């Protein structure tokens, strides 16, 4: 606590001790992640447990989760700018910065999973395969990252509610929606993968992104202030006590409805393979941890007015929701490939997949790279009149 109240020259400015601790944690985590994942740099795909039967495994789930987290954070931030919400200008700069860092983590996880990541940089834009949803996701994501960088530079000089910043927020919001929509289409268009197929998939992705963004926003703003609202300026405190937790609760309830609808329709689906996959899924402890610990418990914590205003409770609920959302992303990615396509007796049941240590290393690398980039930006580049935000 003493570390946070020392910054009396700039009320609301986070303690350097916390940002330094975040940076050290990020660097250590990144080093651990790289140590675990290093075989992929020398052996390529051979170092991974995924392969021909399970083409997209934990690394793709990691990339998708981080990408959705980034888009979600930016949507939470941009909504404040787009609609001129009072007080949100005190949280938006940090959310944009975090969104940019999480995008870097997502891109790193994707690059470690691809067979030729360097080639992707030129082969995708130069060949313009406009029928592929992956191309459009890349276009939206690229514009989004550029806009985020421009916004970060801008917010060093002007407020988030200034006219130009609000216009840029509109563009960021649109690129987020475009990237989320096309990423949902990557899965939702696959009629040959019935677990993924359908118009609900892009919407499911969008909803998951919003909840991830709100949860990460609550977690990191509270973390920055040492899980205390004492040193927040009044406007920020109001957002963190009265607005964001309520939005989080509403998002959680909405997400619970979406998940329930998805599971129930999956269990009753007549399409070959869908029902067995969902029956298998609901028989795992991972699924019930996701539902009970990642959705229902956070709802219970946020439902009580006296509880949801407390930073520590907000932090716990946010962490639980983030873990639950990651499990959901993993389950979604894997379950769509569990019905074997023309494998015969080689694969008599559902395709089995267990991530290996290298794939866990990619997850750790992506997550802690995001944390490191965020902490470096906060520690060394957070200057100017609005640095407290």
């Amino acid at each position, binding site marked *: 606590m003493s570390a946070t109240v020392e910054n009396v020259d700039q009320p609301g400015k986070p303690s350097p001790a916390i940002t330094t601790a975040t940076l050290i944690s990020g660097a250590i985590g990144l080093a651990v992640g790289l140590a675990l994942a290093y075989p992929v740099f020398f052996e390529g795909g051979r170092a991974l447990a995924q392969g021909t039967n399970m083409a997209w495994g934990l690394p793709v789930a990691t990339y998708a989760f981080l990408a959705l987290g980034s888009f979600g954070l930016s949507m939470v931030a941009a909504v404040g700018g787009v609609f001129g919400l009072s007080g949100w200008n005190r949280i938006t700069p940090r959310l944009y910065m975090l969104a940019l860092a999480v995008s870097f983590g997502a891109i790193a996880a994707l690059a470690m999973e691809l*067979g*030729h990541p360097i080639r992707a940089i030129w082969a995708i834009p130069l060949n313009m395969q406009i029928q*592929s*949803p992956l191309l459009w996701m890349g276009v939206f994501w690229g514009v989004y990252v550029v806009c985020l960088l421009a916004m970060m530079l801008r917010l060093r000089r002007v407020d988030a509610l200034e006219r130009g910043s609000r216009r840029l927020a509109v563009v960021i919001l649109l690129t987020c929606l475009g990237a989320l929509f096309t990423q949902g289409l990557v899965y939702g268009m*696959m009629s040959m993968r019935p677990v993924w197929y359908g118009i609900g998939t892009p919407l499911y992705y969008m909803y998951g992104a919003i909840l991830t963004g709100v949860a990460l926003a609550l977690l990191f703003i509270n973390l920055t202030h040492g899980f205390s609202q004492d040193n927040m300026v009044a406007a920020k405190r109001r957002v963190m006590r009265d607005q964001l937790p309520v939005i989080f609760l509403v998002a959680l309830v909405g997400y619970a409805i979406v998940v329930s609808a998805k599971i129930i329709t999956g269990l009753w689906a007549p399409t070959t393979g869908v029902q067995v996959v969902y029956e298998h899924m609901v028989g795992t402890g991972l699924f019930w941890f996701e539902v009970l610990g990642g959705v229902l418990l956070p709802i219970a914590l946020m439902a009580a007015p006296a509880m949801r205003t407390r930073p520590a409770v907000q932090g716990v609920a946010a962490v639980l929701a983030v873990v639950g959302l990651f499990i959901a992303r993993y389950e979604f990615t894997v379950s769509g490939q569990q019905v074997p396509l023309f494998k015969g007796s080689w694969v008599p049941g559902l395709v089995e997949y267990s991530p290996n240590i290298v794939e866990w290393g990619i997850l750790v690398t992506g997550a802690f790279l995001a944390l490191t980039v965020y902490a470096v930006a906060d520690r060394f580049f957070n200057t100017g009149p609005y640095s407290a935000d």
Partner: protein
Amino acid sequence: MPKWGMVIDLDKCTGCQACSTACAMENNTLPGESWQDVLFYHEGEHPNVQIKWFPRPCMQCENPSCVYVCPTGATYKTEDGVVLIDWNKCIGCKYCMIACPYGVRFYADEEPLLEPDLREVFPGEDGQVWNPPYQNPNEDWSKGIGIQPKGVVSKCTFCYHRISQAPDGVADLDEDDPELKEYVPACVRTCAPKARYFGDLDNPESNVNRLIAEKRGTRLKEETGNKPQVYYLGEHGTVPKFDPEFDNES
């Protein structure tokens, strides 16, 4: 320009897997990278259990979903109707493997299916994923022909290095014709019971068209809209329904 297609008569196929072996030898594929696989299934319940088999090459679809989803255009369809991969453009995202309804795309840069790992026994040179003692001299990475490099997806090419050299205007590539046998895909040429036929689907005079018409050729998974250019003849033209519970009990 022909539109090459294949007809497989399941009433003639004995499941000998000579096609799989010939394909692997011709294209230097690794174990598990079965461009031309013969799938075996159990059907029925004890004591009336049957083993069935199903030969499965790439379907070389008319509307190939793999081509549509490839973000770099590495997967493309030739004018003569064959789906190929440009290994110089492939980034190894594996989206085409997700989008293929027939599971006929392979990512050889993965954990070995069998031990010893042949990539370690015969380490690759010049970017090749492995370096077997015998290698087909035909190599063209822009068409996915030859020994693949690391980090790319591979698939059946209909032995494009052979069929693309065939004389113009040929209706069928028949291994019994001495003039044409060198242009016949390896799986067709080696098929002992002569269950496979290869020809021009756009030529009304071709034997493949006659067989499809007279024996009511069927295509797999028509509901996907991919429109395969591989047709099946015979009574057993469908794969048994996916039923993991049966397999677990057995």
